[in-house]
């Protein structure tokens, strides 16, 4: 028999290269665990439907919407949140190119853009557009965000 109810578990999560030992409900969403149990509030709640991308994290190199994922699904995988990125080229580019206004969407955009740069260093314009469509910015700073991504992908890009 099980030591504890199947709807609750004790698991190890690897988050920003650190193992953390936590109790969760099977029904817990990764976004809630990251923000509320682990206190990493960089990943933002927005629509909670998968539409806005504010909650985007990187899971085993791929961008994922943490509002559409159970915490249990991240067990055994590497989770990276905005708190785990330190002085990356895309963070610098966002500052240099003023790619944010209120900043609410920024962590999600940065996680998606960082993953794009890592996975598709030679991304063509179609791929860049396709990836960036996963996030919404209510302050409509899309042009600056695209410029920031291009400045990292194309070293000679200077707009």
């Amino acid at each position, binding site marked *: 028999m099980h030591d504890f109810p199947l*709807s609750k578990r004790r698991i190890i999560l690897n988050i920003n290269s650190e193992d953390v030992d936590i109790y969760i409900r099977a029904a817990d969403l990764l976004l809630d665990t990251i923000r509320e149990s682990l206190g990493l509030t960089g990943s933002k709640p927005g629509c909670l439907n998968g539409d806005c991308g504010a909650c985007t994290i990187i899971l085993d190199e791929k961008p994922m919407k943490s509002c559409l994922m159970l915490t249990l699904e991240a067990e055994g995988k590497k989770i990276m949140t905005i708190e785990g990125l330190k002085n990356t080229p895309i963070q610098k580019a966002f500052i240099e190119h003023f790619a944010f206004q209120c900043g609410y969407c920024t962590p999600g955009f940065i996680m998606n853009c960082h993953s794009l740069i890592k996975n598709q260093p030679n991304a063509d314009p179609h791929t860049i557009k396709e990836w960036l469509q996963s996030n919404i910015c209510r302050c409509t700073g899309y042009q600056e965000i695209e410029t920031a991504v291009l400045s990292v992908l194309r070293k000679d890009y200077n707009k």
Partner: protein
Amino acid sequence: MIPTDFEYYLPATISEAVHLYRTLKNHGKKPLYYSGGTEIITFLRLHLIETGAVININAIPECRQNNLIGDSLTLGSSLTLTEIEEANVFPLLSAASAGVADHTSRNKITLGGNICGMIFYREAVLPFLLCDSYCMIAGGDGVRKAPINSLFNKSLQLTEGELLVQIITQKRYLDLPFICIKRRQQWETGYPLVTVAALRNGNEIRVAISGLCPFPFRSAKMEADLNNTKLSLEERIELAFRHLPAPILHDVEGSAEYRLFVLKNTLLEIIPKLEAGAIA
């Protein structure tokens, strides 16, 4: 947050999954197969469904298969849409699935979840309807193989507890000329006003449609009219429209009249291109 608790299972075999379903159902748990989980999570959060247990099918090797062996392509139901697009063995399917949601969401949305889900667009089914694919379905009596065109009638007709394991498509269909066009009300992501996937098999044009009605469909009667090359294209489309299923969606995305207008124009664009030759 999902307010209600449920149990979580991760079976490693098909028979374990099917057996778990039956046992949990007998215990009144209202189990659900969990593939990408995006729809289950959203609907649980909104109290649109309830469950006492989810059965995650991602550890079942058959559900993860992505193999082109001999003359058939086998795609497991828990492959994500981006996994399918990246492998790009079936370009028409890549094109249809690339229109679903957005790139990050497609890292989670799965083939089986899109086709078995309640959100009725189910755009990933269109290529399989056009290619006369087969479904491998697991149930209490083992695994059975069924043609998708008899199994899919508005939705996949599974009996309770059955699991879609794989979809098999003959290799000869994979490289046929095709066009897939998704028209939205606005923007470049979002649900369709109308999505039309079309394929040319010899001289025959096949068409499957999502977004027009509250279910995707392919109609043999419509195809017969669309392929009647003795008539003008406008006449062929007009005749084909007599066989459209009902109801035509009439909602905030677009009125029924507008959807029909968009469908007509999309067919006017697609059919001459497919008749003219290969398009990929």
